[in-house]
């Protein structure tokens, strides 16, 4: 329904554009032959219209507007420390990239992220399978999960600082905690929502426990687990910045706070931009992984 309505509107818009193109071509007669100019002008406006409708062009316009606005504000405030201009930030990015500082901090943060995601996968997924398949175990362990889950990972930072001190372990601990719950809950949900008919069918055909798990339960639960993994990543990505900002001597979160204290705002902005880029790239990679691992989830709302 929505698609047909859109098509009709698009069609009407095209016709309107063509009409406007024809009208302007006629109203402002060009120097050359009118018979040739009218269709080209018409084609040009139509082309412009179509270009304006494409996503890349509007995206570029949006970024141009944003950068322009930023330039305006920085020129108006005229204070390098409060609002550095986009060119200053770009120069800082290039400088930091050339000195390699950009990559060291990004590498530190992403390796911590990777480590903690793997650790929480190892902890949460097997436990989720056990709790999803065993009602009794679930009944006993679920209260503990529900008691701990509302306490956000951030709230563990002070006690984590006390236990682990400032260093590598604190961000990893916080992220493992943050990533654990979405993974666990999605694994349980995924395992529980496996179509009973599939299991019954496999059982009727005499499939044993291990093949059943590998060939029926895992493929059916994997899309939900992958959704949990992306949620876990999103939570961990926000938590790592907080953990590094407060309690680590390296990493992206540390770097922005470090350059704020030095009042080197262009570099601080450069690291904020970098955080956005790294987060975006990681999400793209996870989406690709999701498509590769669970192509059968496409179009089910879990993709």
């Amino acid at each position, binding site marked *: *329904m*929505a698609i047909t*309505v859109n098509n009709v509107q698009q069609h009407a818009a095209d016709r309107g554009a063509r009409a406007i193109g024809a009208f302007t071509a006629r109203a402002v007669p060009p120097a050359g032959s009118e018979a040739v100019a009218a269709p080209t002008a018409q084609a040009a406006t139509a082309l412009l219209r179509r270009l304006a409708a494409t*996503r890349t062009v*509007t*995206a570029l*316009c*949006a*970024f141009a*507007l*944003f950068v322009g606005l930023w330039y305006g504000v920085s020129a108006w405030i005229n204070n390098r*420390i*409060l609002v550095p201009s986009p060119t200053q930030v770009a120069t800082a990015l290039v400088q930091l990239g050339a000195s390699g500082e950009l990559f060291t901090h990004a590498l530190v943060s992403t390796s911590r992220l990777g480590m903690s995601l793997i650790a929480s996968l190892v902890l949460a997924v097997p436990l989720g399978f056990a709790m999803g398949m065993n009602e009794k175990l679930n*009944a*006993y*362990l*679920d*209260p*503990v999960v529900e*008691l*701990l889950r*509302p*306490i*956000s990972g*951030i*709230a*563990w*930072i*002070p*006690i984590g*600082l*006390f236990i682990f001190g400032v260093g590598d372990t604190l961000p990893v601990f916080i992220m493992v905690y943050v990533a654990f719950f979405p993974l666990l809950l999605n694994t349980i949900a995924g395992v529980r929502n496996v179509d009973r008919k599939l299991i019954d069918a496999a059982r009727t055909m005499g499939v044993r426990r291990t093949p059943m798990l590998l060939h029926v339960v895992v493929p059916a639960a994997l899309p939900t687990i992958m959704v949990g993994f992306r949620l876990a990543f999103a939570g961990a*990505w*926000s938590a*790592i*910045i*907080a953990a590094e*900002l*407060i309690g680590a001597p390296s990493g*992206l*979160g540390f770097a*922005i*706070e470090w*350059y*704020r204290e030095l009042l080197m*705002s262009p570099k*601080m*902005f450069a*690291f*904020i931009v970098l*955080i*956005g*880029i*790294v*987060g*975006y790239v*990681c*999400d793209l990679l996870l989406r690709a992984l999701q498509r590769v691992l669970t192509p059968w989830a496409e179009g089910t709302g879990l993709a």
Partner: protein
Amino acid sequence: MSTMSLPVAPVRRLRRAWLMQITLVPLVLLGVWEVWAVLAGDSHAPAPTRVIESFIELVAQGGLIGATVESLGRVVSGFAVALVLGVVLGILMGSNRWVRNLLDPIVESFRPVAPMALLPLAILWLGAGTPAAVSIVAYAAFFPLLINTVHGVSRVDRKLVLAARTMGVPRWRILTKVVLPASLPAVLLGSRLAMGVAWTAIVAAELGVGAKSGGGGSGGIGAMMFVFYAYNVDLNAIVVCMIVVGVVALLIDRLFRFAEHRLMPWRT
């Protein structure tokens, strides 16, 4: 009498079994924790009984409740800003394809920038105090609200809008009488998610502000935790604060679920 008591006994037994099931593991864990603390011999080691003592003491002083209320006040004001911005922009982006194409890339490029990454910027612009914390909350709460509103508005049944337009209903009335009620479920869902994120963000922001202003002058539950870590070194009090953070998060979630249920009884 006897006909009444017959079904009650099994129900009571079932309830007792259920109660045992849900309390067994938490109680065992608490017991292990207590024994560990006693064996550790350190009178500062956190233990359940000491946490309870600490809780009573902190409540009696009034500091705990004051700090929680202060944090909640910041969450509510940040959330209010995000609600207005998110819903207005969401309606614009959801109903106008051109606006959506223009703003979507910008929104998507800000989304992976974690709220805490902007805390240094907020401190730089607004100083280490309430405005910085509130702006971080507003930023964090903005995205779930915006994205859910856009989703809700763009999913409004076109037939309803077209029918209203055919009958000559003015644009503003279509918005208030057709589009808004139809997208209410999505907005409420966004509000619940946003409030959860906002509560996490305020704790993070207060911790960060407390850590970076050198002395937690800003108040709030997060700053309180940091003071207990950095100055008083009172682990039991930190655990009390963590439990309060969890309980408040749970209460906020339940409150919003209740509101969803009350405002839209047709979707359980």
